[in-house]
């Protein structure tokens, strides 16, 4: 029964919240998703946190997404143990990279007074969700190998069953608790996108984040308090 709620009903609730919420956010508050001048507050730890975190997590997310779209590709690649080991080791290294970056970002939020002052409750919540996601993901990779294969065999069919409006909870019902937390937490993450700083990756051309020169992002005020700041209408 609990599995039906968590993996049969909750996905629809959270996906609906995500989609409707994004329209709401875009129509009411679209320029509020950039960082609140975070580089101005503290720059050094931000670099060592943000770069490892984003390069690690984005590569892993792309891997999840490709396997979701073309699961047979995973089996084709993993058709030789050497390639399977290579994929899993690269995934594990990137997982450690993401964890390192995330811990650095959390450390920055806790220790830097200026950053601490600007931290919202949403930021705290999102960091908790992200750390759970990364730790359980590493748990899957290390203690329940080989995740790339059984993700494509068990989790992907469940995801497609959700999208086809015919949820088959049996695919994930008997997976380890660590994996179930990873899956459910991912859905919470998706549901929270519109309300938090996570909206920053729901943009038309997110790849530009990877190649553009670093820049200073300033606060956007609808009613600027000083004359010096250029107004964008």
């Amino acid at each position, binding site marked *: 029964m609990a599995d039906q709620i968590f993996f049969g009903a909750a996905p629809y609730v959270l996906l609906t919240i995500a989609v409707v919420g994004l329209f709401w956010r875009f129509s009411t508050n679209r320029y509020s998703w950039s960082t609140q001048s975070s580089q101005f507050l503290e720059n050094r730890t931000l670099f060592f946190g943000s770069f490892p975190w984003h390069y690690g997590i984005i590569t892993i997310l792309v891997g999840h997404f490709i396997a979701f779209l073309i699961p047979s590709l995973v089996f084709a690649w993993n058709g030789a143990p050497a390639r399977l080991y290579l994929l899993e080791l690269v995934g594990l290294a990137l997982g450690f*990279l993401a964890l390192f970056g995330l811990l650095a970002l959390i450390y920055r939020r*806790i220790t830097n007074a200026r950053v*601490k002052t600007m931290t919202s409750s949403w930021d705290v919540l999102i960091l908790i969700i992200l750390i759970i996601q990364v730790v359980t993901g590493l748990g899957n*990779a290390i203690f329940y190998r080989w995740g790339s294969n*059984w993700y494509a065999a068990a989790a992907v069919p469940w995801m497609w069953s959700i999208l086809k409006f015919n949820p088959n909870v049996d695919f994930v019902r008997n997976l380890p608790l660590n994996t179930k937390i990873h899956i459910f937490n991912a859905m919470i993450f998706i549901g929270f996108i519109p309300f938090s700083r996570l909206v920053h990756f729901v943009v038309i051309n997110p790849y530009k984040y990877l190649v553009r020169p670093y820049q200073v992002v300033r606060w956007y005020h609808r009613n600027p308090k000083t004359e010096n700041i250029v107004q964008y209408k």
Partner: protein
Amino acid sequence: MVLESSKKMLKGGVRLAAALFLFMGLMSAPAMAAENAAAAAVVTPAAAPVAAEPVEHGDASIGEQLFKGEVRLVNGGPPCISCHSISVGALNGGVLGPNLTKIYADPTKNGFVSDAWINGGGSPVMGPIFAEKNITEGEVNNLRAFFQKQSKGEVAGSATGGFVIIGLAGFIGILIIFSIIWAGRYSKRAGNTAHDALWRNYGGKGGR
């Protein structure tokens, strides 16, 4: 107020997560080794009653290829190595499911290596997968021949420790590459950034 308390919670949570992660990492190798030893201990005595060895008609080498995924199961099911180990490969097989090295020699489990058991939902995790993508009788015969061969050998370790160590080495390697690529990110910048200008406005030196 709420923010302060949530920050404290976050701080505590991070410490706990870090400690747990470290603990899990340290405990994994001996725990896995103990698990394998226990599994081997349970299975080994059962091997004795199999006096007259049955003849398997399948091909063990094809069975090995099916197990590793080098030859795909004809109906698209995932290869056994996804979740099971059978003491082949440098880092062995998966550990989501039980180690199958000695399953053939265990009379209580030998029957699980059948298309009826696998496709019929004998395992709760495999059931829904193979109900849709049946394994065939011919494939199972080849696997049985391979399992028979493997059951005569030693149970190899799970290689979790080695896997983690290589992964950590890869992570450190990526960090080093990052450091090299972005070593001159401030000193080599063209002209001043807006960031420098902001700092000068407030009496700072620029840069960081």
